[in-house]
């Protein structure tokens, strides 16, 4: 258990560190178009050529032939470390031009291939992750906090409070959110900066998403407040707040954690639907959501498999979070009252 937890935490840490240092690790600016190499497959790293094995990997340039890309073997371009390239703000603090690795132009090192505009997928996945993961986590927090709040109140106080709050959730879940979103879009100024879009996204998703967790929480609270230790605590004169905090909330945590592992990736992917209505992160800024929306097209899915990179990144992130949540949950269980 210990080693597994340690591995998971290390993996999570590495993931987030990679995303934070996107500017350094990514060889290219995510919006830089390279119109000579659209939809290019991932650059192949070679270690061996006619003159034997090399320690430093090298790449060839992609050239477009009739039925696809071919490597131009006439000239090899070694991969350099600690290079200078396009400028960016490291951690948003200071400008620098240092990158982890790159190759000299005109060759490109696109580890995950390029998209339809020749932009490097690897760089876009890293930068995109910053926005998407942050938005997903923030939206989930909002939804779960609001959901837990209303769920606990509804479940604990019962009767009319319960009925009206649950009616509220049903109202929320039934409404045509599409029209509401379109209306919101119409009221907003035409251009909303990517940062503001990000905030808008999270608020919208979080606000709409509180209903389901609320219902789940309420169900649990309804049964747990009748437990003996709760009745006992109340008969001793404990205040509602105390009872809720000490006895009800721990029961609810399990459900919340499971919901979290489901909601975070869901909300990240929900951006796909939102961008259809102009509420996603706009071009040319990269986010996993808007990169995933190109995968809705059959021809892209079938012909350019490397564009599945953001889906892969999303899956890996969500797996790590899910496994970690499981570990945390088992830790919490050992501390449950009545165990």
């Amino acid at each position, binding site marked *: 258990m210990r080693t597994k937890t340690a591995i998971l935490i290390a993996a999570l840490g590495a993931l987030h560190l990679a995303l934070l240092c996107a500017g350094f690790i990514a060889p290219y600016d995510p919006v830089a178009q390279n119109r000579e190499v659209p939809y290019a497959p991932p650059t192949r790293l070679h270690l061996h050529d006619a003159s034997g094995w090399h320690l430093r990997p090298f790449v060839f340039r992609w050239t477009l032939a009739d039925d696809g890309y071919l490597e131009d073997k006439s000239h090899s371009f070694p991969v350099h470390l600690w290079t200078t390239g396009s400028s960016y703000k490291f951690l948003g603090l200071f400008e620098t031009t240092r990158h982890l690795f790159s190759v000299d132009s005109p060759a490109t090192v696109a580890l995950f291939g390029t998209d339809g505009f020749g932009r490097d997928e690897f760089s876009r996945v890293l930068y995109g992750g910053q926005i998407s993961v942050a938005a997903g986590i923030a939206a989930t927090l909002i939804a779960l906090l609001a959901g837990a709040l209303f769920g606990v109140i509804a479940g604990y*106080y*019962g*009767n009319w409070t319960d*009925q009206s709050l*649950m*009616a509220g959730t*049903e*109202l929320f*879940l*039934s*409404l*045509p959110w*599409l*029209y509401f979103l*379109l*209306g919101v879009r119409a009221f907003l100024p035409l251009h909303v900066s990517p940062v503001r879009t990000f905030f808008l996204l999270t608020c919208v998703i979080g606000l709409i998403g509180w209903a*389901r967790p609320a*219902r*789940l929480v*309420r*169900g*649990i609270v*309804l*049964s747990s407040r*009748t437990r003996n230790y709760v*009745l006992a605590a*109340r008969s001793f004169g404990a205040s509602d707040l105390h009872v809720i905090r000490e006895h009800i909330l721990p029961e609810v945590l*399990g*459900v919340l*954690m*499971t919901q979290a*592992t*489901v909601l975070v*990736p*869901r909300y*990240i*992917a*929900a951006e*796909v*639907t939102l961008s259809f209505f102009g509420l996603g992160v706009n071009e040319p800024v990269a986010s996993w959501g808007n990169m*995933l929306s190109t*995968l*809705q097209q*059959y021809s892209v*899915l*079938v012909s350019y498999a490397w564009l599945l990179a953001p*889906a892969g990144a*999303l*899956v890996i*992130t*969500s*797996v790590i979070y899910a*496994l970690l949540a499981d570990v945390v*949950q*088992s830790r919490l*269980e*050992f501390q*449950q009252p*009545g*165990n």
Partner: protein
Amino acid sequence: MRYLGRTLLRAILLLAGVSILCFLFTEMAPGKFFDELRLNPQVSPETIANLRSRYGLDQPLAVRYGRWVRSAAHADFGYSLAYNAPVAPLLWGRARNTLLLTTTAMLLTWLISLPLGVWLAARRGRMLDQAFSIASSFLVSIPEVVIAVALLAIVVRWRLLPLSAGPLNTEGVSPWTHVQDLATRMVLPVTILVFVESAIIVRHVRASVLEVLETPFVQAARSFGIGQARVLFRHVLPAAASPAISLFGFSLAGLVSGSLLTEVVCGWPGLGPLILEATLSRDFYLVIGGIMLSALFMVGGNLIADVMLLAADPRIRTGALDAH
């Protein structure tokens, strides 16, 4: 009984509230039904204005709402601008097709998820559990529409299923061929729905079962020598039931609305394609009709879930809920 009465009242109020809010929301959204004609340079604005006033689209909101309520009383539920026909008959036929799909998917999902969730909880930490965790993360992260397109692409490329099949409603075809036909067409959409739903349900079931597994009464039952399976299914499951019941309520609630994208991608003639197109073209009486239908199912589903919650945990029913 009083509880039921209260819930019924709440349901009616809710439906009324939903309908009013729907009207408000559709009013907020930019664009109206006949806007598409504006892109056709050969149609004059006068024709468009006449069309709008003929269908009462230029009336104030309150008037339109009143008309709709009256139409609902006649069981018409409004008039579809695109189909030039009352909304209700359009919805019933398609709703039947959707329900066929979703009830099958729901049955399969729960038949698979409950035992699977319990079983995985019992084998926590082992290979299968980890594998499932990865698989379910996969299914949860990838948007449903991408999963649907991907599965459809696999079916097409590897010719797993015949995509061309007879129509859903035919007279003159033997019942057995009809059922076979139907089954073949349902395999893909049902698979997609089951995959997507069960990933979440299994996780929740597993998590709540795990919580209960560590409690004293289960340890006690085990120490008494009661077999693993019996412990799991007769003692643990009822105690862990609460989130599962709520989820079951969600499944019921989503019977008409949950399969929209899958139906569109797989070409299943249910409510999905109808409502999606109506939404995009602003055929709003049809949209509102669809929303009322799914609101109805939502209320029904939650009601059943509440009843089940009461049944599962008798303590909720009794006066333990007094002081407030």
